[in-house]
C-alpha cells in the first residue's frame, strides 16, 4: 500500500450532488455549523446617521432583510451577532461604539456601512470625526456608498455570509471565538484634549504606507 491510498480522497461537489439526487445528504459538522451561523446573523439595533435610514429600509417589507435570516434586530448587544456601523462615527461616539462591540458575545461580525464608517467620508479632514471605525474594531465587510442603497447592504450581508461559510473550525484561520489566544476584548479609547487617546488601536489598524506618484 502506498501513502496516497491511506489519505481519504475528498468528495467532489459533483459526487455530492449525485448522492443528493439519490436522497443521501452528506455534510460535515463544519459545514452544518457555518450554515446555521450564516443564516441567523442577528444585527444590533444601532444606527448612527443617514446610513441607518437605509438600514431601516432594508429591514422593512420592501427590501426584507428577513430573506437572509437577519431580521431580528436586537436591542441589546448581548444578543447580537452583527454590528452594522451605519453612519458617521464622531470622536465623541467612538468609545461607545467600541464598548458596544466589546459587549457583544463571540462569534460577532462587523459591517462598516457607508463612506463615513469606512474612512470618515466627507468629514474625513474634520476635527471631530473618526477616520474610519476600523481603527478600533476589526471590520469584516466594507460597504461603500453615501449612503449605500439597501441592495448594497443586502449584498454586504451576503458577502458576510459567504465569509462565515468559508471559515474553518480549527487551525490558524479559525474564527476568534474558537481560538484560545484571542482575548476578544478591544481597548476603549479615552477622550483627550484634541483627539481620542490612543488615536488608533495598533493591533487592529496600522496606517497605510502611501507611495506618492511621481506626478501628483
Amino acid at each position, binding site marked *: 500500500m502506498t501513502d496516497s491510498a491511506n489519505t481519504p480522497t475528498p468528495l467532489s461537489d459533483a459526487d455530492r450532488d449525485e448522492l443528493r439526487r439519490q436522497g443521501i445528504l452528506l455534510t460535515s459538522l463544519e459545514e452544518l455549523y457555518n450554515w446555521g451561523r450564516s443564516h441567523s446573523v442577528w444585527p444590533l439595533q444601532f444606527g448612527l446617521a443617514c446610513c441607518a435610514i437605509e438600514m431601516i429600509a432594508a429591514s422593512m417589507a420592501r427590501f426584507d432583510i428577513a430573506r437572509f435570516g437577519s431580521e431580528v434586530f436586537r436591542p441589546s448587544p448581548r444578543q447580537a451577532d452583527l454590528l452594522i456601523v451605519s453612519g458617521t462615527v464622531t470622536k*465623541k461616539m467612538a468609545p461607545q461604539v467600541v464598548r458596544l462591540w466589546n459587549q457583544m458575545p463571540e462569534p460577532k461580525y462587523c459591517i462598516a456601512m457607508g463612506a463615513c464608517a469606512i474612512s470618515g467620508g466627507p468629514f*474625513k*479632514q474634520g476635527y*471631530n470625526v473618526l477616520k474610519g471605525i476600523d481603527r478600533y474594531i476589526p471590520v469584516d465587510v466594507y460597504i461603500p456608498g453615501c449612503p449605500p442603497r439597501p441592495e448594497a447592504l443586502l449584498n454586504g450581508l451576503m458577502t458576510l455570509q459567504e465569509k462565515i461559510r468559508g471559515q474553518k473550525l480549527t487551525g490558524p484561520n479559525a474564527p476568534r471565538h474558537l481560538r484560545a489566544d484571542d482575548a476578544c476584548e478591544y481597548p476603549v479609547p479615552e*477622550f*483627550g484634549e*484634541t483627539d481620542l487617546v490612543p488615536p488608533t488601536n495598533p493591533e487592529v489598524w496600522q496606517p497605510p504606507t*502611501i507611495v506618492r506618484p511621481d506626478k501628483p
Partner: protein
Amino acid sequence: MESLEQIRDRLLSRYPGAELSILNNPSPSAQHSLVVGGSAAREIAAFLRDDPALQLDFCSNVTGVDWPDKEIVETTRTTIPDPAGGPPKLVEQKTKRIQPGYLEVVYHLYSMALKQGPVIIRMRTGNRTDQVTLPSLTPVWRSGEFQEREVFDLFGVVFDGHPDLRRILMWDEFKGHPMRKDYVEPDDYEWEPTPHDEVLAKAKAHYPAPAAPAAPGANAK
C-alpha cells in the same frame, strides 16, 4: 408689528441707560437687528417677552459669530501746494489701525401668540480673550439652554446665569473652541485621493513628493 426703531424707542423710554443700537442688514432679507448692551440685557429680554404688543414668547434660534481682530487701512489725501508755483501735489497717507475683535451672540425671537416676528437681538462681548461673559437669556426663554451651551462649546462665550453651562457637542476634556476663526485643528491629516485647497497643502506637507529626476517635459501640464 412695530418697526425695530419703534421697539428701540420704547425700550429707551423704559430703560433710559440701556445701550441699544440698530444694526441694519443691507441684504434683500432686510432682517435688521437690535444690538443690546450686556448689562441690562436680561431685563430687556423679559420686557420683549412680556410686552403685550410684542409677546416674543419663542426664542427660535441662538447662534454665535466670531469677529476676529481686523486691520483697517485708512487713506487720507492731502494736497500740498508747490512752493515753486507749480500744480499742488497730492499726498496719500495710509494709516493702519486694528479694530479689536469680539464674539457675538444672535437671538431670533418670534411671537407664537401674535404670529409675528422675527425680532433679532445681538449681544457682543468686550473682546475675544478675557471679557467673554454675557448674561444668559435662558431664564427668559428656556429654549436657549442647549443653544447657549452650544455657543459656549464652539465659540467660548461664557453665559452668566445659565443653569447648566457645560460643553454639549465636544467632550468635556476637549480644549479650544472649534468654530472660532483662529482655531487650529489637530494636525492629523491622512491620505486622501483627490486633495485640494487647504487639504492639498496638508497633503504636500505630510507626503512630500519624491525627489524625482528632472525629466524633460515634467513641468508640462
